[in-house]
């Protein structure tokens, strides 16, 4: 059973609201960098950076983080995460990092991402931005910027459809059964 949670137009509105929040929070953008968690967060971060660039008229550094090697469930031998490339084409030392993920659930991905980031350098501060907060936390982690909050049964999955042309927005669906 698959339900459309947001159409592409609605996703665009949520991203605009997030951009409003960011614009009112940060007065200067000198040391701000975006890092998206692969793969959903990477997609959200790309769109946000594009929006902020249009609003601010300046380039904003964007990196992509793969957290497969930082997961805390490898020893359980339950599944096999695919390792992809982390790409942070800038120095994060002393920077303000806006860590972006698509869905905040247990908090374990965010924990892994923070572990990964501090192995690459010492940012001045890390903020967490998520498109959806669906609850179900297993660690004491909260987002600083949230697009939408939704309570979902733990078995359901929120999936962002990424179009072939990644500059466009896809819809967001609730689907499947989480194992």
């Amino acid at each position, binding site marked *: 059973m698959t339900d459309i949670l947001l159409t592409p137009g609605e996703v665009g509105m949520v991203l605009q609201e997030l951009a409003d929040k960011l614009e009112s929070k940060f007065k200067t953008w000198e040391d701000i960098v975006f890092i998206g968690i692969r793969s959903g967060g990477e997609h959200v971060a790309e769109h946000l950076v594009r929006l902020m660039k249009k609003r601010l008229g300046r380039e904003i550094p964007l990196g992509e983080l*793969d957290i497969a*090697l*930082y*997961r*805390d469930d*490898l*020893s*359980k*031998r*339950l*599944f*096999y*995460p695919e*390792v*992809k*490339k*982390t790409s942070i084409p800038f120095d994060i030392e002393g920077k303000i990092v806006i860590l972006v993920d698509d869905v905040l659930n247990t908090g374990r991905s965010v924990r892994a991402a923070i*572990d*990964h980031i501090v*192995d*690459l*350098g010492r940012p001045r501060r890390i903020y967490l931005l998520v498109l959806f907060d669906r609850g179900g936390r297993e660690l004491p982690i909260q987002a600083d910027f949230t697009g939408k909050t939704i309570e979902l049964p733990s078995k359901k999955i929120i999936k962002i459809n990424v179009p072939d042309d990644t500059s466009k927005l896809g819809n967001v669906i609730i689907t499947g059964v989480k194992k």
Partner: protein
Amino acid sequence: MNWPHKDLIGIADLEAEEITTIFDLAPNFKEISRRDIKKVPTLRGKTVVLIFYEASTRTRLSFEIAAKRLSADTVAISQTGSAFQKGETMMDAAKNIMAMMPDCIVMRYPYAGMLPRLAKELPCSVINAGDGYHEHPTQALLDMYSMREHFGALKGLNVVMVGDIMHSRVARSNVYGLKKMGARVTLVGPKTLMPPGIESWGAAVSTEFDPVIPDADVIMMLRIQKERIAEHLFPGDREYSSFYGLGKARVAMMKKDAVIMHPGPMNRGVEINSDAADSKRAIILDQVENGVAIRMALMYLCLGGSNVD
């Protein structure tokens, strides 16, 4: 992909697609080695035991660094000063080590045949770090990966391996792997250093070095294994070097974009001269760097988990 292997005993056991999986993972691990903090928590809580029944510096160090960079705990045992000297059988020793619950045993052993038995008996991963004249699979993987990194692909490459083929587990593993990946291999050396039945390996064989140089994309010089070679197999270092050594004159005969490789340690002045070993064509230190990344990728695959689906 779902990694189907608990162990790695030989390249012969791997499919081309599986070799590609290891290669595709390696750049991620290489990136870790180039960071200031060269460590990820991936194998935290795992124990890797390194048993080296033969002398080794670089392979052992490479495995140990690879395991530590993945946060595994490592224990290294060598023949000297261990119970192996007291007459205990390898199987008994391994079972005792197993009772201490390691997750992976990396082993170098002077004879072929023991490692597959161990892998079958023991529940932990067993990785071959060189067994007799049989195989040295991780060396072949890092060699092939270094070629792929340099040329972009292995398919169609013309690889010439020169030297002591008979005693070289590196040559055997590389021939198995390169053939699977679509490369052509020519083995060069004196007849006395060619093993019986070499024709069955599926590689071209030549006793003359010079004629094959101009067409080679890769020239891999193999170490003359003095510790294994009876003196009568070739007249002497100087004569060997004149027929089969790689020096300035032969480097000049190579294709413009061809590279020089050596699995190390090198006997300078015997199979390779400094003109070749230190030239810009040599990717020997790339091989060493890639060795850590390849072994990290392999341990990740063998220890990282398996799909229950």
